[in-house]
């Protein structure tokens, strides 16, 4: 193992509707593999790096589950699909536009005034040693991009290339602007309480429970100690959630460790899960998880007795009643209604894209992939909601959650990425491999994706997911401030130049 703490052991980004695990060395990969298959020699207590390698699977899987059930997250996901579909259409028209330069990201370019655009064009001309003529994109204010317009499906084949570009680019930019607003969140007076960090807290609680049962108390203590001492935003979010949990915890426990650490930690998941159930469609900005969390803190602080807002985690009915009281205390739409609305909204999304497909011109590859993914998301949401309804306690108690039987919860497709090393082609007997070529001409496997449903339909859907991911990365690069993987930066500019016939210039 490398032993060096890394910035990313795994990730969940709905560009790929599955989870990714990242390995920087073959030793790290084999260490994690031995643990997961139980084939390795018993090893002494792992350091933080080893603990992370062995528990990242539990962490990322919870992200997938929270993504499915959080109405707020699903709104962001639907915006992502809207952004993708319109961005693909817009980019398809760029070749026919006047101008020789496509400035990216377009969403930032659109908000620049004429003076700033001219200054940048002059800088680029100096850099390139030639005059540059950016394609025309009308200026827009950020607030304008955040106004809501009704969703429409319309034919654009009667429009000029410029008109079609502006129409589709406008829809894509609106989606990206909304994604930025939603992920930044509302009402989080503290930056570390932004929605993504509450997702992280949820995943940490499950990960810690998995470490407790799977690796041992010493490893649990190592990871927890790191998290309660760290100043990283996601760790500070956990520390804040623990404070609220201590106020709500009524059980006194048998030891100081139990009272101050285990019981509050166990209670945190019920707080984050309720916060993540916020629904932007029903409650607007108040549906933001950050806003819900801070309103819950206020309600608990204002309560004459915080016990009135607590419940017993081992009793599903008690958890449900506790959440009902939180809904009333904060005046927010009930969590039950938020969840039901979320499932219905995804189902409506399938219907909407099915209608859009009927009017689609050209290749339907992308929209078919969107439909395939949305159908699976719908199916997985229903399974997750059914498990939640059947045993709410197990869902929000991380120490019970990690024992939920396999097959009871939806499992995501997974991808392994190897960085700085490769695996010999032919090593993997199933899955979709990414192969790269060394300077000497030999090839190696730099990544592999596995469909959780390993049959023809599951593999076909995995292919669609990988296609969507690739298209989304290009569109994100062209339209948004969202980060894309290094290899995309290195290749997508050339790809976009080929597609559009323009020089791609990045706003820095």
């Amino acid at each position: 193992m490398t032993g060096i703490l890394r910035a990313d052991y795994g990730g969940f980004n709905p560009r790929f509707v599955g989870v990714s695990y990242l390995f920087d060395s073959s030793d790290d990969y084999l260490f994690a593999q031995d643990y997961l298959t139980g084939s390795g020699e018993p090893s002494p207590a792992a350091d933080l790096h080893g603990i992370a390698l062995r528990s990242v699977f539990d962490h990322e899987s919870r992200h997938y589950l929270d993504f499915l059930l959080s109405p707020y997250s699903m709104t962001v996901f639907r915006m992502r699909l809207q952004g993708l579909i319109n961005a693909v259409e817009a980019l398809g028209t760029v070749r026919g536009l006047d101008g020789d330069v496509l400035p990216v990201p377009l969403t930032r370019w659109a908000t620049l005034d004429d003076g700033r655009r001219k200054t940048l064009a002059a800088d680029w001309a100096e850099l390139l040693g030639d005059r540059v003529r950016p394609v025309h994109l009308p200026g827009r204010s950020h607030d304008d991009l955040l106004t809501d317009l009704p969703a429409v499906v319309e034919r654009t084949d009667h429009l000029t290339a410029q008109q079609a570009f502006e129409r589709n680019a406008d829809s894509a930019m609106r989606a990206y602007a909304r994604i930025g607003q939603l992920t930044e969140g509302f009402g989080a007076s503290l930056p570390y309480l932004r929605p993504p960090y509450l997702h992280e807290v949820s995943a940490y609680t499950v990960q810690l429970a998995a470490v407790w049962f799977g690796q041992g108390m010493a490893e649990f203590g190592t990871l927890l100690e790191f998290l309660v001492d760290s100043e990283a935003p996601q760790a500070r979010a956990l520390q804040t959630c623990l404070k609220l949990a201590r106020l709500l915890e009524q059980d006194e426990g048998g030891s100081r460790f139990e009272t101050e650490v285990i019981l509050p930690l166990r209670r945190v998941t019920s707080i984050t899960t309720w916060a993540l159930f916020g629904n932007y469609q029903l409650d607007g900005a108040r549906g933001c998880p950050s806003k819900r969390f801070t309103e819950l803190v206020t309600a608990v602080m204002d309560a004459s007795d915080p016990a009135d807002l607590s419940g017993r985690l081992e009793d599903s009915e008690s958890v449900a009643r506790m959440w009902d009281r939180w809904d009333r205390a904060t005046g927010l739409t009930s969590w039950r209604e938020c969840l039901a609305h979320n499932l219905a909204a995804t189902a409506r999304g399938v219907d909407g894209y099915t209608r859009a497909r009927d009017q689609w011109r050209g290749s339907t590859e992308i929209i078919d992939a969107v439909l395939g993914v949305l159908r699976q998301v719908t199916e997985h949401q229903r399974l997750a909601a059914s498990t939640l309804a059947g045993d709410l306690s197990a869902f929000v108690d991380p120490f019970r959650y990690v024992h939920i039987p396999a097959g009871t919860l939806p499992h995501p497709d997974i991808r392994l990425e190897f960085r700085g090393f490769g695996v010999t082609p032919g090593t993997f007997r199933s899955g979709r491999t990414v192969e790269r070529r060394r300077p000497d001409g030999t090839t190696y496997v730099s990544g592999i994706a596995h469909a959780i449903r390993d049959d023809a339909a599951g593999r076909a859907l995995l292919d669609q997911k990988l296609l969507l991911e690739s298209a989304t990365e290009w569109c994100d690069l062209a339209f948004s401030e969202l980060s894309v993987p290094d290899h995309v930066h290195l290749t997508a500019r050339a790809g976009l130049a080929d597609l559009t016939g323009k020089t791609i210039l990045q706003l820095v």
Partner: protein
Amino acid sequence: MRVQIDGERDLVTGLADGFAEVELVDGTDLTEQKFGFAEAATIIATVQSLAEIAKLVTEFVRSRAARGTTKPQTLRLRTAIGTVVVEVDPETTVEQLQEALGPLTPQR
């Protein structure tokens, strides 16, 4: 020329002190849920040439090595026309780094 530089927080904020004109920006992508321990940071430096960056980075990495931080450092650099990812260790020379940064400026 404006150059965006991403990397581990300690490295990037340390480098920022060496540039005459620099701004620290929030490069966090909140749509990406990553599990990890090292924190990242982003700066945008305005420089006259790539040689200026190559010299500053190699000197900084060597000074960190002298204080015990010898692991290779990964940096992502972006300009209007290109992006490169480089790994720099205390043995990397200014010339090697400057060559690796080539795609950040037009090849004439």
